[in-house]
């Protein structure tokens, strides 16, 4: 394991300046309700405007409408969107995860069918991994795909599926055969969320929002053409998928805006020395995490596989998101009201209610520690 320090080159800094100017122009502060990092609202028009600038599907091949850009360039764009609280919910999963997966293991036909739509900011995706009885222990999934004429019949239930009620496709991890080794016999399939037999039931979140779903698959027909990658290779495929997902700025920026907005609403008031210390410590920690996270993107561009590094950053970054929130909350001394007139208070209230998810989603910190420790011992 090794993090190698890197910084943005001139070209990457120019991209950063372009994204900042675009956001200031099209989404000025005060003109929209910012979200907490990757929980930003879903706004297809915004995703398409971003795509028109070439900032969706950046890492995908140009022949399918992508930018064939480096991981560091995608990092720069993602970082600016996240810290701005931009409404990235429509394209986020497709851009970060599903598009790159299809580009890597998909068939030519799948690439032609999906990647251009992803790159235009049109197609949206969900992640179909967890099940009622399979959370951290993903290899225990029981959703089954049974071969049939021209494809598969898929039966089972996926849970915690963010956006399934409004997104287009879900890439599901399913069992395609029984094997002694439970990591074998798993495959990934594309599920058209409009297909007959797909039922999406909301699982209301504790704050009353309804982005979370249970997706029941009742004998859903999946054509052969919608198998993703190699049959039986699903476990290896999701391992790589998660490795890419883990080290990015979405894993340490979720509560950044709570801090920024607190500073904004303090306005010209001279803050307490204790707040200056809090602000300094938080700024230093953001800077330190960003150095690590950027180094992971650079490592991917250099052809290395920084999966242990990504697990370390995600474990540390998500804990920091929660710790920072607690520090600001303690300092602000108020009764948080999600309907307050103050944006700071709304962000704070929203963050308090949703922050426990930060150290759970996409792999709990307990699982990440096991993954990281294994890598450290190797």
């Amino acid at each position, binding site marked *: 394991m090794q993090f190698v*320090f890197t910084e943005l080159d001139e070209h990457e800094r120019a991209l950063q300046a372009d994204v900042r100017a675009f956001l200031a122009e099209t989404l000025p502060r005060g003109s929209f309700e910012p979200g907490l990092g990757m929980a930003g609202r879903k706004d297809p028009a915004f995703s398409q405007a971003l795509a028109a600038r070439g900032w969706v599907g950046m890492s995908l091949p140009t022949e399918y409408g992508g930018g064939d850009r480096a991981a560091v360039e995608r990092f720069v764009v993602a970082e600016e969107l996240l810290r701005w609280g931009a409404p990235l919910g429509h394209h986020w999963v497709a851009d970060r995860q599903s598009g790159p997966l299809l580009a890597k293991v998909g068939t030519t036909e799948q690439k032609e069918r999906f990647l251009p739509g992803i790159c235009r900011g049109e197609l949206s995706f969900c992640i179909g991994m967890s099940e009622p009885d399979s959370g951290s222990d993903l290899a225990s999934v029981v959703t089954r795909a049974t071969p049939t004429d021209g494809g598969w019949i898929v039966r089972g239930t996926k849970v915690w599926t963010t956006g399934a009620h409004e997104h287009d496709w879900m890439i599901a991890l399913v069992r395609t055969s029984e094997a002694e080794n439970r990591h074998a016999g798993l495959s990934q399939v594309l599920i058209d969320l409009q297909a007959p037999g797909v039922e999406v039931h909301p699982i209301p979140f504790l704050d009353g929002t309804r982005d979370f779903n249970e997706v029941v698959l009742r004998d859903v027909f999946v054509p052969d053409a919608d198998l993703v990658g190699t049959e039986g290779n699903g476990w290896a495929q999701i391992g790589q998928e998660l490795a890419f997902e883990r080290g990015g700025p979405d894993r340490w920026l979720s509560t950044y805006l709570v801090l*920024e907005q607190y500073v904004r609403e303090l306005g010209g008031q001279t*803050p307490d020395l204790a707040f200056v210390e809090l*602000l*300094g410590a938080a700024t230093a920690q953001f800077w*330190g*995490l960003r150095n*690590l996270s950027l180094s992971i993107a650079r490592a991917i561009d250099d052809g290395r596989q920084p999966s242990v590094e990504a697990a370390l950053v995600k474990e540390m970054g998500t804990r920091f998101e929660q710790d920072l929130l607690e520090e600001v909350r303690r300092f602000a001394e108020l009764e948080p009201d999600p309907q307050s007139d103050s944006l700071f208070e709304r962000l704070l209230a929203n963050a308090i209610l949703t922050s426990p998810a930060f150290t759970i989603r996409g792999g709990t910190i307990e699982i990440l520690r096991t993954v990281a420790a294994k890598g450290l011992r190797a």
Partner: protein
Amino acid sequence: MTTVDPLLSETAARVFADHATFAAVEQAEADGWAPAMWAAVAETGLPWVSVSAAAGGSGGTLADAIEIVRLAGFHAVPLPLAETGLLAGWLLEGAGLELPAGAVTVVPGAPADSLVLRDGVLHGRVTRVPWARAVDGIVALLDGRDGPTVVVVDPASTQIGSAVNLAGEPRDTVTFDGVTPRAAARAAAGVDARALRRRGSLARTAAMAGALEHLAALTIEYTTTRRQFGRVLADFQAVQAHLVHGAQHAELVNTALAAATVAAARGPAEMEIAAAKLLADRAAGEASSHAHQAHGAMGMTREYPLHHLTRRLWSWRSEYGDEQSCSRVVGELARNAGADHLYELVADGSRALEPLAAGEARDHT
């Protein structure tokens, strides 16, 4: 980028491993000085890297010197390596003064220090001076009539009272009772007490980064060897958390050090250096706790080398800035940047401050 000659780092790592053995580090603590270790390291010219050959140094860049100090921290080398070249050499070369032969120390500048230069003569008392009792020259930065002034003093002309840090490294009290310095000259432009503090801070961060890396490695080694309940300790999830957190601190601080070193080669790097030292200071406490917990009683013994690292980390976190002072430095910069530019400070560091400070004089060090 921080490119360091691999031959240089190999040489440093080898010399430190050969001479700063467990026994030699113990002996140095008992004696307050390790003359043989110093002679062996001095032989290689390592203490004078980053000081130009013209000024009597070994040449090389700031990044080279930082890597040497980092490796010295890894091996718990009990010598004034950072003081001799990176700090004293920098002050002396900038002031156009000659480097004394041998080890040199620098007065860090504690708030209670009272050293003044009056009519060319030094009066007063300074504290926490590394290895003052053993060096061949003491260098101090003072307010002179024409601005910051560098002086070199013969230690024999002062009174030295012994004091140590938690690792038993000398941090002596030096009294100047009407001492005429060997030499005095105006400091280079931009070199003042704050600049010295920044450079000292960067040097201590480097040593801490090395120590944290070694701490993480020792913890992995111990917990993958020691068995309890029929399994190695590292098989237990609760113990894995200690491994992971130790590694995170080591990586966070080493990367921050590299970032701060690059920024320091470019300008004052006030934000990056204070941020890196702050991360190192926090890591010193937290990573040491994780390492000790993972080692159990063995880590508490004198015979096991963990304390060579943890006692140094617990000391260095208070030298050239601590968590409070560093968080205030970064916090003031962040407050001045304001909400609209706060993230630019995170992402762009000192560069974000350039447009904000346009027109103000800059003190490049």
